[in-house]
Protein backbone atom coordinates (compact mmCIF):
# COMPACT_ATOMS: atom_id res chain seq x y z
CA UNK A 1 0.00 0.00 0.00
CA UNK A 2 1.30 3.45 -0.93
CA UNK A 3 2.08 5.86 1.89
CA UNK A 4 -0.49 8.45 0.67
CA UNK A 5 -3.21 5.77 0.44
CA UNK A 6 -2.39 4.65 3.98
CA UNK A 7 -2.61 8.23 5.31
CA UNK A 8 -5.89 8.79 3.44
CA UNK A 9 -7.38 5.61 4.90
CA UNK A 10 -6.28 6.62 8.40
CA UNK A 11 -7.92 10.06 8.01
CA UNK A 12 -11.16 8.52 6.68
CA UNK A 13 -11.22 6.00 9.57
CA UNK A 14 -10.63 8.75 12.14
CA UNK A 15 -13.41 10.91 10.64
CA UNK A 16 -15.73 7.91 10.60
CA UNK A 17 -15.09 7.22 14.28
CA UNK A 18 -15.52 10.87 15.19
CA UNK A 19 -18.82 11.05 13.27
CA UNK A 20 -20.03 7.82 14.93
CA UNK A 21 -19.28 9.16 18.41
CA UNK A 22 -20.93 12.54 17.72
CA UNK A 23 -23.96 10.96 16.08
CA UNK A 24 -24.44 8.43 18.86
CA UNK A 25 -24.17 11.29 21.36
CA UNK A 26 -26.85 13.31 19.56
CA UNK A 27 -29.18 10.28 19.46
CA UNK A 28 -28.60 9.19 23.06
CA UNK A 29 -31.72 10.96 24.36
CA UNK A 30 -33.99 9.73 21.55
CA UNK A 31 -33.45 5.98 21.32
CA UNK A 32 -32.15 3.12 23.48
CA UNK A 33 -29.85 1.61 20.83
CA UNK A 34 -28.25 4.93 19.98
CA UNK A 35 -24.80 3.40 19.42
CA UNK A 36 -26.15 1.13 16.65
CA UNK A 37 -28.28 3.92 15.16
CA UNK A 38 -25.30 6.26 15.24
CA UNK A 39 -23.23 3.67 13.41
CA UNK A 40 -25.93 3.04 10.77
CA UNK A 41 -26.41 6.74 9.98
CA UNK A 42 -22.63 7.32 9.85
CA UNK A 43 -22.12 4.25 7.66
CA UNK A 44 -24.92 5.38 5.29
CA UNK A 45 -23.31 8.82 5.02
CA UNK A 46 -19.90 7.21 4.45
CA UNK A 47 -21.28 5.04 1.62
CA UNK A 48 -23.07 8.02 0.05
CA UNK A 49 -19.90 10.10 0.06
CA UNK A 50 -17.85 7.12 -1.17
CA UNK A 51 -20.11 6.72 -4.21
CA UNK A 52 -20.15 10.48 -4.89
CA UNK A 53 -16.33 10.52 -4.69
CA UNK A 54 -16.32 8.78 -8.09
CA UNK A 55 -17.26 12.14 -9.62
CA UNK A 56 -13.77 13.35 -8.71
CA UNK A 57 -11.92 10.19 -9.70
CA UNK A 58 -12.06 6.41 -9.35
CA UNK A 59 -10.83 5.35 -5.90
CA UNK A 60 -10.83 2.40 -3.44
CA UNK A 61 -13.66 3.85 -1.33
CA UNK A 62 -15.95 3.96 -4.36
CA UNK A 63 -14.98 0.39 -5.28
CA UNK A 64 -15.71 -0.76 -1.71
CA UNK A 65 -19.18 0.85 -1.76
CA UNK A 66 -19.94 -0.57 -5.21
CA UNK A 67 -18.95 -4.13 -4.29
CA UNK A 68 -20.82 -3.94 -1.00
CA UNK A 69 -23.95 -2.76 -2.80
CA UNK A 70 -23.83 -5.60 -5.33
CA UNK A 71 -23.25 -8.23 -2.64
CA UNK A 72 -25.90 -6.98 -0.23
CA UNK A 73 -28.46 -6.55 -3.04
CA UNK A 74 -27.97 -10.12 -4.26
CA UNK A 75 -28.23 -11.51 -0.73
CA UNK A 76 -31.28 -9.38 0.07
CA UNK A 77 -33.20 -10.49 -3.04
CA UNK A 78 -32.29 -14.14 -2.39
CA UNK A 79 -33.45 -14.00 1.25
CA UNK A 80 -36.68 -12.21 0.33
CA UNK A 81 -37.36 -14.75 -2.41
CA UNK A 82 -36.77 -17.62 0.02
CA UNK A 83 -38.94 -16.32 2.86
CA UNK A 84 -41.80 -14.88 0.82
CA UNK A 85 -42.08 -17.45 -1.96
CA UNK A 86 -40.48 -20.75 -0.93
CA UNK A 87 -41.51 -20.58 2.74
CA UNK A 88 -44.91 -18.89 2.33
CA UNK A 89 -46.09 -20.31 -1.01
CA UNK A 90 -44.32 -23.64 -1.54
CA UNK A 91 -43.74 -25.32 1.82
CA UNK A 92 -47.37 -25.19 3.10
CA UNK A 93 -48.39 -27.00 -0.11
CA UNK A 94 -45.82 -29.78 0.29
CA UNK A 95 -45.18 -30.68 3.92
CA UNK A 96 -46.93 -30.21 7.27
CA UNK A 97 -43.70 -30.88 9.17
CA UNK A 98 -41.72 -28.26 7.29
CA UNK A 99 -44.63 -25.80 7.62
CA UNK A 100 -44.50 -26.19 11.41
CA UNK A 101 -40.72 -25.80 11.37
CA UNK A 102 -41.04 -22.48 9.49
CA UNK A 103 -44.04 -21.46 11.65
CA UNK A 104 -46.41 -21.43 8.67
CA UNK A 105 -50.07 -22.40 9.00
CA UNK A 106 -51.04 -24.87 6.27
CA UNK A 107 -54.68 -24.43 5.26
CA UNK A 108 -56.95 -27.46 4.66
CA UNK A 109 -56.62 -28.43 1.02
CA UNK A 110 -53.30 -26.66 0.61
CA UNK A 111 -51.35 -29.84 -0.20
CA UNK A 112 -50.68 -30.08 -3.92
CA UNK A 113 -48.50 -32.80 -5.43
CA UNK A 114 -47.82 -30.77 -8.59
CA UNK A 115 -45.75 -28.28 -6.58
CA UNK A 116 -42.97 -30.89 -6.59
CA UNK A 117 -42.42 -30.04 -10.28
CA UNK A 118 -41.02 -26.52 -9.57
CA UNK A 119 -38.94 -28.03 -6.76
CA UNK A 120 -37.35 -30.50 -9.18
CA UNK A 121 -36.84 -27.75 -11.78
CA UNK A 122 -35.25 -25.55 -9.12
CA UNK A 123 -32.83 -28.28 -8.08
CA UNK A 124 -31.97 -28.91 -11.74
CA UNK A 125 -31.23 -25.19 -12.11
CA UNK A 126 -28.76 -25.37 -9.22
CA UNK A 127 -26.86 -28.12 -11.07
CA UNK A 128 -25.19 -25.26 -12.94
CA UNK A 129 -22.85 -25.10 -9.93
CA UNK A 130 -21.67 -28.65 -10.67
CA UNK A 131 -18.79 -28.87 -13.21
CA UNK A 132 -20.02 -32.18 -14.67
CA UNK A 133 -23.79 -31.73 -14.33
CA UNK A 134 -23.99 -28.17 -15.66
CA UNK A 135 -25.88 -29.32 -18.75
CA UNK A 136 -28.85 -30.36 -16.59
CA UNK A 137 -29.55 -26.70 -15.76
CA UNK A 138 -30.27 -26.02 -19.43
CA UNK A 139 -33.62 -27.82 -19.23
CA UNK A 140 -35.22 -25.61 -16.54
CA UNK A 141 -33.57 -22.59 -18.18
CA UNK A 142 -35.23 -23.55 -21.47
CA UNK A 143 -38.53 -23.84 -19.59
CA UNK A 144 -38.09 -20.35 -18.06
CA UNK A 145 -37.16 -18.77 -21.40
CA UNK A 146 -39.97 -20.55 -23.22
CA UNK A 147 -42.73 -19.63 -20.78
CA UNK A 148 -41.50 -16.03 -20.38
CA UNK A 149 -41.24 -15.55 -24.14
CA UNK A 150 -44.69 -17.07 -24.66
CA UNK A 151 -46.29 -14.97 -21.93
CA UNK A 152 -44.66 -11.73 -23.05
CA UNK A 153 -45.29 -12.36 -26.75
CA UNK A 154 -49.05 -12.43 -26.31
CA UNK A 155 -49.18 -9.48 -23.89
CA UNK A 156 -46.82 -7.26 -25.87
CA UNK A 157 -48.58 -8.08 -29.15
CA UNK A 158 -51.88 -7.06 -27.61
CA UNK A 159 -50.84 -3.99 -25.58
CA UNK A 160 -47.84 -2.59 -27.41
CA UNK A 161 -48.82 -3.40 -30.99
CA UNK A 162 -52.52 -3.87 -31.67
CA UNK A 163 -53.76 -1.45 -28.97
CA UNK A 164 -51.16 1.14 -29.93
CA UNK A 165 -52.25 0.99 -33.59
CA UNK A 166 -55.83 1.34 -32.45
CA UNK A 167 -54.90 4.34 -30.26
CA UNK A 168 -53.34 6.06 -33.29
CA UNK A 169 -56.66 6.06 -35.17
CA UNK A 170 -57.86 9.26 -33.57
CA UNK A 171 -60.72 11.41 -34.93
CA UNK A 172 -58.98 14.32 -36.67
CA UNK A 173 -61.92 16.63 -36.01
CA UNK A 174 -62.23 15.60 -32.37
CA UNK A 175 -64.94 13.53 -30.74
CA UNK A 176 -67.39 16.41 -30.34
CA UNK A 177 -67.45 17.77 -33.91
CA UNK A 178 -70.87 19.21 -34.80
CA UNK A 179 -70.03 21.25 -37.89
CA UNK A 180 -67.84 24.25 -38.68
CA UNK A 181 -70.47 26.77 -37.59
CA UNK A 182 -70.81 25.19 -34.17
CA UNK A 183 -67.02 24.98 -33.88
CA UNK A 184 -66.44 28.71 -34.48
CA UNK A 185 -69.45 29.90 -32.50
CA UNK A 186 -68.23 27.88 -29.47
CA UNK A 187 -64.49 28.41 -29.99
CA UNK A 188 -62.68 27.51 -26.77
CA UNK A 189 -58.92 28.10 -26.51
CA UNK A 190 -58.51 26.44 -23.09
CA UNK A 191 -56.45 23.25 -22.64
CA UNK A 192 -59.63 21.17 -22.38
CA UNK A 193 -61.27 22.90 -25.36
CA UNK A 194 -62.13 21.40 -28.75
CA UNK A 195 -59.42 23.30 -30.65
CA UNK A 196 -56.64 21.90 -28.48
CA UNK A 197 -58.16 18.39 -28.68
CA UNK A 198 -58.20 18.58 -32.49
CA UNK A 199 -54.62 19.92 -32.56
CA UNK A 200 -53.47 17.10 -30.23
CA UNK A 201 -55.04 14.48 -32.50
CA UNK A 202 -53.34 16.00 -35.55
CA UNK A 203 -49.99 15.96 -33.75
CA UNK A 204 -50.43 12.24 -32.93
CA UNK A 205 -51.48 11.41 -36.49
CA UNK A 206 -48.75 13.42 -38.22
CA UNK A 207 -46.10 12.41 -35.66
CA UNK A 208 -46.72 8.69 -36.16
CA UNK A 209 -47.12 9.01 -39.94
CA UNK A 210 -43.95 11.07 -40.48
CA UNK A 211 -42.00 8.97 -37.96
CA UNK A 212 -42.88 5.83 -39.90
CA UNK A 213 -41.88 7.49 -43.18
CA UNK A 214 -38.45 8.28 -41.71
CA UNK A 215 -37.92 4.55 -41.07
CA UNK A 216 -39.11 3.54 -44.56
CA UNK A 217 -35.91 2.97 -46.54
CA UNK A 218 -37.26 1.33 -49.73
CA UNK A 219 -37.87 4.73 -51.36
CA UNK A 220 -35.45 7.60 -51.66
CA UNK A 221 -36.24 10.45 -49.25
CA UNK A 222 -36.88 13.18 -51.86
CA UNK A 223 -39.69 15.63 -52.60
CA UNK A 224 -42.84 15.35 -50.46
CA UNK A 225 -41.60 12.03 -49.11
CA UNK A 226 -38.31 13.65 -48.04
CA UNK A 227 -40.18 16.56 -46.41
CA UNK A 228 -42.34 14.14 -44.41
CA UNK A 229 -39.18 12.25 -43.44
CA UNK A 230 -37.66 15.51 -42.17
CA UNK A 231 -40.75 16.14 -40.05
CA UNK A 232 -40.27 12.58 -38.76
CA UNK A 233 -36.71 13.46 -37.68
CA UNK A 234 -38.02 16.51 -35.82
CA UNK A 235 -40.61 14.38 -34.07
CA UNK A 236 -37.89 11.94 -33.02
CA UNK A 237 -35.63 14.77 -31.83
CA UNK A 238 -38.45 16.28 -29.76
CA UNK A 239 -39.10 12.85 -28.23
CA UNK A 240 -35.43 12.40 -27.35
CA UNK A 241 -35.34 15.93 -25.92
CA UNK A 242 -38.35 15.21 -23.70
CA UNK A 243 -36.72 11.95 -22.55
CA UNK A 244 -33.48 13.80 -21.77
CA UNK A 245 -35.39 16.45 -19.80
CA UNK A 246 -37.15 13.78 -17.76
CA UNK A 247 -33.85 11.96 -17.22
CA UNK A 248 -32.22 15.13 -15.87
CA UNK A 249 -35.18 15.61 -13.53
CA UNK A 250 -34.86 12.00 -12.31
CA UNK A 251 -31.13 12.27 -11.65
CA UNK A 252 -31.50 15.58 -9.84
CA UNK A 253 -34.23 14.02 -7.66
CA UNK A 254 -31.82 11.28 -6.61
CA UNK A 255 -29.18 13.88 -5.74
CA UNK A 256 -31.78 15.85 -3.76
CA UNK A 257 -32.62 12.66 -1.85
CA UNK A 258 -28.98 12.00 -0.93
CA UNK A 259 -28.15 15.60 -0.03
CA UNK A 260 -31.31 15.81 2.09
CA UNK A 261 -30.17 12.67 3.92
CA UNK A 262 -26.69 14.11 4.52
CA UNK A 263 -28.00 17.48 5.72
CA UNK A 264 -30.96 16.22 7.77
CA UNK A 265 -30.12 12.76 9.14
CA UNK A 266 -26.34 12.96 9.33
CA UNK A 267 -25.31 16.59 9.86
CA UNK A 268 -28.67 17.70 11.32
CA UNK A 269 -28.37 21.18 9.80
CA UNK A 270 -31.95 21.13 8.45
CA UNK A 271 -35.11 19.88 10.14
Amino acid sequence: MKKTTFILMAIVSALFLLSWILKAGSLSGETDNYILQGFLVTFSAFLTLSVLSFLYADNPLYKFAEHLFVGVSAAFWMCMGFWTTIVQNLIPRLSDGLSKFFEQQPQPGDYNFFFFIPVILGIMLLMRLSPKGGWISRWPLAFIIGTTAGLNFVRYLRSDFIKQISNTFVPLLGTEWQGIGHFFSNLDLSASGQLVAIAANWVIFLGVFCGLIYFYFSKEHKGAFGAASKVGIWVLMLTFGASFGYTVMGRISLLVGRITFLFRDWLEIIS
Partner: protein
Amino acid sequence: MDNIGVIISLILIFGGLVALFYGSLKGREVDRRIIFLFIFLAVAAPILFPMTFEEKATQVVKSVFDKVENLPEGSTVLLSFDFDPAMAPEVQPMANAISRHCLEKGHKIIFMSLWATGQALLSQSLSESILPGFPEKQNLVDYVSIGYKAGNEGVPNVIITDIQKMFPTDVNSVPLDSIPIFDNIESCKDLDFIVSFGGGKPGPKEWILFVGDPGGVPIGVGVAAVVAPQMYPYLPDQVIGILGGVKGAAEYESELIRVHPKFADMDTPGLLMMGPQTLAHVVIMAFIVIGNVVFFRGRRREKKE
Protein backbone atom coordinates in the same frame (compact mmCIF):
# COMPACT_ATOMS: atom_id res chain seq x y z
CA MET B 1 -32.64 34.53 7.05
CA ASP B 2 -33.88 32.12 4.38
CA ASN B 3 -34.31 34.93 1.86
CA ILE B 4 -30.80 36.25 2.51
CA GLY B 5 -29.46 32.70 2.10
CA VAL B 6 -31.32 32.31 -1.20
CA ILE B 7 -30.02 35.65 -2.49
CA ILE B 8 -26.41 34.89 -1.52
CA SER B 9 -26.66 31.41 -3.09
CA LEU B 10 -28.08 32.80 -6.33
CA ILE B 11 -25.38 35.48 -6.50
CA LEU B 12 -22.69 32.83 -5.94
CA ILE B 13 -24.08 30.44 -8.54
CA PHE B 14 -24.85 32.95 -11.27
CA GLY B 15 -21.71 34.97 -10.56
CA GLY B 16 -19.73 31.77 -10.98
CA LEU B 17 -21.55 30.97 -14.22
CA VAL B 18 -20.76 34.42 -15.64
CA ALA B 19 -17.10 33.96 -14.65
CA LEU B 20 -17.04 30.56 -16.35
CA PHE B 21 -18.66 32.02 -19.46
CA TYR B 22 -16.07 34.77 -19.60
CA GLY B 23 -13.26 32.26 -19.07
CA SER B 24 -14.65 30.01 -21.81
CA LEU B 25 -14.79 32.90 -24.26
CA LYS B 26 -11.12 33.49 -23.50
CA GLY B 27 -10.45 29.87 -24.47
CA ARG B 28 -10.11 28.28 -21.03
CA GLU B 29 -11.39 24.67 -20.70
CA VAL B 30 -14.07 23.98 -18.09
CA ASP B 31 -13.23 20.88 -16.03
CA ARG B 32 -16.16 18.47 -15.64
CA ARG B 33 -15.68 18.63 -11.85
CA ILE B 34 -16.54 22.34 -11.97
CA ILE B 35 -19.87 21.42 -13.57
CA PHE B 36 -20.49 18.84 -10.80
CA LEU B 37 -19.70 21.49 -8.19
CA PHE B 38 -22.22 23.92 -9.70
CA ILE B 39 -24.92 21.22 -9.80
CA PHE B 40 -24.15 20.40 -6.16
CA LEU B 41 -24.49 24.08 -5.18
CA ALA B 42 -27.69 24.46 -7.20
CA VAL B 43 -29.22 21.47 -5.41
CA ALA B 44 -27.83 22.09 -1.92
CA ALA B 45 -28.70 25.80 -1.67
CA PRO B 46 -32.51 25.39 -2.00
CA ILE B 47 -32.38 22.51 0.50
CA LEU B 48 -30.62 24.69 3.07
CA PHE B 49 -32.74 27.75 2.26
CA PRO B 50 -36.05 26.35 0.99
CA MET B 51 -37.52 27.80 -2.20
CA THR B 52 -41.05 26.74 -3.05
CA PHE B 53 -43.10 27.29 -6.18
CA GLU B 54 -46.82 27.10 -6.74
CA GLU B 55 -47.84 23.93 -8.55
CA LYS B 56 -51.03 23.36 -10.52
CA ALA B 57 -52.05 19.81 -11.42
CA THR B 58 -51.85 19.07 -15.14
CA GLN B 59 -54.49 16.92 -16.82
CA VAL B 60 -52.44 13.69 -16.68
CA VAL B 61 -52.03 14.03 -12.90
CA LYS B 62 -55.54 15.33 -12.34
CA SER B 63 -57.00 12.26 -14.05
CA VAL B 64 -55.49 10.01 -11.35
CA PHE B 65 -56.55 12.43 -8.61
CA ASP B 66 -60.13 12.64 -9.93
CA LYS B 67 -60.34 8.85 -10.18
CA VAL B 68 -59.43 8.43 -6.49
CA GLU B 69 -61.64 11.39 -5.54
CA ASN B 70 -64.73 10.14 -7.40
CA LEU B 71 -64.62 6.44 -6.48
CA PRO B 72 -67.46 5.57 -4.10
CA GLU B 73 -66.50 5.19 -0.43
CA GLY B 74 -65.47 1.61 0.37
CA SER B 75 -63.98 0.94 -3.08
CA THR B 76 -60.96 -1.34 -3.15
CA VAL B 77 -57.73 0.13 -4.49
CA LEU B 78 -54.48 -1.77 -5.01
CA LEU B 79 -51.27 0.21 -4.59
CA SER B 80 -48.12 -1.56 -5.74
CA PHE B 81 -44.77 -0.25 -4.48
CA ASP B 82 -42.53 -1.50 -7.31
CA PHE B 83 -39.38 0.46 -6.55
CA ASP B 84 -36.10 0.39 -4.66
CA PRO B 85 -34.24 2.96 -2.52
CA ALA B 86 -32.61 4.43 -5.64
CA MET B 87 -36.02 5.39 -7.06
CA ALA B 88 -37.55 6.24 -3.67
CA PRO B 89 -36.80 10.01 -3.57
CA GLU B 90 -39.00 10.64 -6.59
CA VAL B 91 -41.56 7.82 -6.34
CA GLN B 92 -42.17 7.50 -2.58
CA PRO B 93 -43.66 11.04 -2.20
CA MET B 94 -46.36 10.30 -4.78
CA ALA B 95 -47.05 6.86 -3.25
CA ASN B 96 -47.51 8.47 0.17
CA ALA B 97 -49.78 11.20 -1.21
CA ILE B 98 -52.06 8.77 -3.07
CA SER B 99 -52.20 6.42 -0.05
CA ARG B 100 -53.30 9.31 2.18
CA HIS B 101 -55.87 10.38 -0.39
CA CYS B 102 -57.34 6.85 -0.60
CA LEU B 103 -57.59 6.55 3.19
CA GLU B 104 -59.15 10.01 3.44
CA LYS B 105 -61.83 9.01 0.91
CA GLY B 106 -62.60 5.81 2.86
CA HIS B 107 -61.29 3.38 0.23
CA LYS B 108 -59.93 -0.02 1.24
CA ILE B 109 -56.28 -0.33 0.26
CA ILE B 110 -54.32 -3.45 -0.66
CA PHE B 111 -50.60 -2.70 -0.56
CA MET B 112 -48.14 -4.98 -2.33
CA SER B 113 -44.83 -4.98 -4.16
CA LEU B 114 -43.29 -6.67 -7.18
CA TRP B 115 -39.83 -5.67 -5.89
CA ALA B 116 -38.24 -7.22 -2.82
CA THR B 117 -36.94 -3.81 -1.81
CA GLY B 118 -40.42 -2.34 -2.18
CA GLN B 119 -41.73 -4.22 0.84
CA ALA B 120 -39.32 -2.50 3.24
CA LEU B 121 -40.06 0.91 1.71
CA LEU B 122 -43.78 0.17 1.96
CA SER B 123 -43.43 -0.61 5.69
CA GLN B 124 -41.45 2.61 6.12
CA SER B 125 -44.11 4.65 4.30
CA LEU B 126 -46.92 3.12 6.34
CA SER B 127 -45.30 3.60 9.74
CA GLU B 128 -43.65 7.01 9.18
CA SER B 129 -45.81 8.90 6.68
CA ILE B 130 -49.21 7.39 5.96
CA LEU B 131 -50.70 5.87 9.13
CA PRO B 132 -49.73 8.59 11.69
CA GLY B 133 -52.34 10.83 10.01
CA PHE B 134 -55.04 8.16 10.28
CA PRO B 135 -54.97 6.65 13.79
CA GLU B 136 -58.56 5.40 13.39
CA LYS B 137 -57.75 3.16 10.40
CA GLN B 138 -57.35 -0.54 11.20
CA ASN B 139 -55.04 -3.07 9.64
CA LEU B 140 -56.93 -5.84 7.75
CA VAL B 141 -60.14 -3.75 7.81
CA ASP B 142 -59.18 -0.49 6.10
CA TYR B 143 -55.86 -1.53 4.63
CA VAL B 144 -53.68 -4.61 4.30
CA SER B 145 -50.16 -5.26 3.13
CA ILE B 146 -49.72 -8.52 1.23
CA GLY B 147 -46.04 -7.82 0.67
CA TYR B 148 -43.71 -9.08 -2.02
CA LYS B 149 -43.63 -12.23 -4.11
CA ALA B 150 -40.87 -13.30 -6.47
CA GLY B 151 -41.84 -14.02 -10.06
CA ASN B 152 -41.67 -10.66 -11.85
CA GLU B 153 -44.44 -10.42 -14.46
CA GLY B 154 -45.60 -13.90 -13.40
CA VAL B 155 -47.12 -12.33 -10.26
CA PRO B 156 -49.64 -10.01 -12.02
CA ASN B 157 -50.21 -12.77 -14.56
CA VAL B 158 -51.46 -15.04 -11.76
CA ILE B 159 -53.37 -12.53 -9.63
CA ILE B 160 -55.40 -11.35 -12.62
CA THR B 161 -57.31 -14.62 -12.11
CA ASP B 162 -56.68 -15.53 -8.44
CA ILE B 163 -54.94 -13.38 -5.82
CA GLN B 164 -54.80 -16.11 -3.16
CA LYS B 165 -52.98 -18.46 -5.47
CA MET B 166 -49.96 -16.15 -5.33
CA PHE B 167 -50.61 -14.51 -1.95
CA PRO B 168 -52.08 -17.14 0.41
CA THR B 169 -51.35 -14.86 3.38
CA ASP B 170 -50.69 -11.22 4.08
CA VAL B 171 -47.26 -9.96 5.10
CA ASN B 172 -47.84 -11.10 8.71
CA SER B 173 -48.91 -14.64 7.64
CA VAL B 174 -52.64 -13.96 8.20
CA PRO B 175 -54.59 -16.08 5.66
CA LEU B 176 -56.18 -13.88 3.01
CA ASP B 177 -59.57 -15.60 3.25
CA SER B 178 -59.87 -14.42 6.87
CA ILE B 179 -59.23 -10.76 5.97
CA PRO B 180 -62.41 -8.65 5.58
CA ILE B 181 -61.01 -6.59 2.68
CA PHE B 182 -60.90 -9.74 0.54
CA ASP B 183 -64.53 -10.71 1.19
CA ASN B 184 -65.57 -9.68 -2.32
CA ILE B 185 -62.16 -9.70 -3.94
CA GLU B 186 -61.04 -12.86 -5.69
CA SER B 187 -58.85 -11.48 -8.46
CA CYS B 188 -57.54 -8.16 -9.76
CA LYS B 189 -60.63 -7.95 -11.97
CA ASP B 190 -62.66 -7.24 -8.81
CA LEU B 191 -60.56 -4.19 -7.92
CA ASP B 192 -61.82 -0.68 -8.58
CA PHE B 193 -58.48 0.92 -9.28
CA ILE B 194 -54.81 -0.05 -9.40
CA VAL B 195 -51.86 2.32 -9.10
CA SER B 196 -48.34 1.05 -9.67
CA PHE B 197 -45.40 3.13 -8.46
CA GLY B 198 -42.05 2.31 -10.00
CA GLY B 199 -39.82 2.72 -12.98
CA GLY B 200 -38.12 -0.59 -13.59
CA LYS B 201 -39.08 -4.10 -14.60
CA PRO B 202 -41.41 -5.44 -13.30
CA GLY B 203 -43.35 -2.27 -12.73
CA PRO B 204 -46.08 -0.05 -14.18
CA LYS B 205 -45.68 -1.43 -17.70
CA GLU B 206 -46.22 -5.01 -16.50
CA TRP B 207 -49.40 -3.93 -14.68
CA ILE B 208 -50.72 -2.47 -17.94
CA LEU B 209 -49.75 -5.51 -20.01
CA PHE B 210 -50.77 -8.27 -17.61
CA VAL B 211 -53.69 -6.76 -15.67
CA GLY B 212 -54.99 -3.48 -17.13
CA ASP B 213 -55.44 -4.55 -20.75
CA PRO B 214 -56.56 -8.18 -20.34
CA GLY B 215 -58.68 -7.53 -17.24
CA GLY B 216 -60.11 -4.14 -18.11
CA VAL B 217 -59.05 -2.79 -14.71
CA PRO B 218 -58.41 0.99 -14.53
CA ILE B 219 -54.69 1.61 -14.07
CA GLY B 220 -52.85 4.71 -12.94
CA VAL B 221 -49.09 4.93 -12.82
CA GLY B 222 -46.61 6.88 -10.72
CA VAL B 223 -43.23 6.53 -12.36
CA ALA B 224 -39.64 7.64 -12.03
CA ALA B 225 -38.99 10.52 -14.43
CA VAL B 226 -36.72 8.44 -16.69
CA VAL B 227 -39.61 6.12 -17.55
CA ALA B 228 -42.37 8.74 -17.86
CA PRO B 229 -41.98 9.31 -21.65
CA GLN B 230 -42.43 5.57 -22.23
CA MET B 231 -45.79 5.68 -20.45
CA TYR B 232 -47.38 8.48 -22.50
CA PRO B 233 -48.30 6.25 -25.49
CA TYR B 234 -50.64 4.33 -23.15
CA LEU B 235 -52.68 7.47 -22.40
CA PRO B 236 -55.65 7.69 -22.11
CA ASP B 237 -57.04 4.27 -23.06
CA GLN B 238 -54.57 1.96 -21.30
CA VAL B 239 -53.69 4.16 -18.33
CA ILE B 240 -55.93 6.78 -16.78
CA GLY B 241 -53.13 9.14 -15.81
CA ILE B 242 -49.42 9.46 -15.13
CA LEU B 243 -47.48 10.97 -12.25
CA GLY B 244 -44.08 11.56 -13.85
CA GLY B 245 -41.19 11.99 -11.45
CA VAL B 246 -41.06 14.48 -8.64
CA LYS B 247 -43.01 17.04 -10.70
CA GLY B 248 -45.97 14.62 -10.79
CA ALA B 249 -45.67 14.09 -7.03
CA ALA B 250 -45.59 17.86 -6.41
CA GLU B 251 -48.67 18.40 -8.57
CA TYR B 252 -50.56 15.62 -6.74
CA GLU B 253 -49.58 17.00 -3.32
CA SER B 254 -50.66 20.46 -4.38
CA GLU B 255 -54.06 19.20 -5.65
CA LEU B 256 -54.53 17.14 -2.47
CA ILE B 257 -53.97 20.21 -0.28
CA ARG B 258 -56.25 22.34 -2.47
CA VAL B 259 -59.17 19.88 -2.33
CA HIS B 260 -58.55 18.58 1.22
CA PRO B 261 -57.15 21.48 3.30
CA LYS B 262 -56.65 19.14 6.29
CA PHE B 263 -53.46 17.99 4.54
CA ALA B 264 -51.97 21.51 4.55
CA ASP B 265 -49.64 20.54 7.39
CA MET B 266 -48.54 17.19 5.95
CA ASP B 267 -44.97 16.69 4.78
CA THR B 268 -44.73 17.56 1.08
CA PRO B 269 -41.36 16.26 -0.16
CA GLY B 270 -42.50 16.57 -3.78
CA LEU B 271 -43.25 20.29 -3.47
CA LEU B 272 -40.04 20.91 -1.51
CA MET B 273 -37.96 19.15 -4.16
CA MET B 274 -39.17 21.50 -6.89
CA GLY B 275 -36.87 24.26 -5.57
CA PRO B 276 -33.64 22.29 -6.13
CA GLN B 277 -35.09 20.92 -9.39
CA THR B 278 -35.75 24.39 -10.77
CA LEU B 279 -32.38 25.85 -9.84
CA ALA B 280 -30.47 22.77 -11.08
CA HIS B 281 -32.34 22.89 -14.40
CA VAL B 282 -31.51 26.58 -14.81
CA VAL B 283 -27.81 25.80 -14.20
CA ILE B 284 -27.87 22.91 -16.70
CA MET B 285 -29.55 25.13 -19.31
CA ALA B 286 -26.94 27.82 -18.63
CA PHE B 287 -24.16 25.28 -19.25
CA ILE B 288 -25.84 24.18 -22.51
CA VAL B 289 -26.03 27.81 -23.66
CA ILE B 290 -22.41 28.51 -22.61
CA GLY B 291 -21.21 25.37 -24.40
CA ASN B 292 -23.06 26.25 -27.61
CA VAL B 293 -21.94 29.90 -27.63
CA VAL B 294 -18.31 28.89 -27.13
CA PHE B 295 -18.59 26.15 -29.76
CA PHE B 296 -20.07 28.39 -32.48
CA ARG B 297 -17.69 31.24 -31.65
CA GLY B 298 -14.74 28.88 -31.93
CA ARG B 299 -16.00 27.50 -35.24
CA ARG B 300 -16.46 30.98 -36.69
CA ARG B 301 -12.92 31.89 -35.60
CA GLU B 302 -11.55 28.72 -37.23
CA LYS B 303 -13.33 29.57 -40.51
CA LYS B 304 -11.83 33.08 -40.49
CA GLU B 305 -8.36 31.67 -40.01
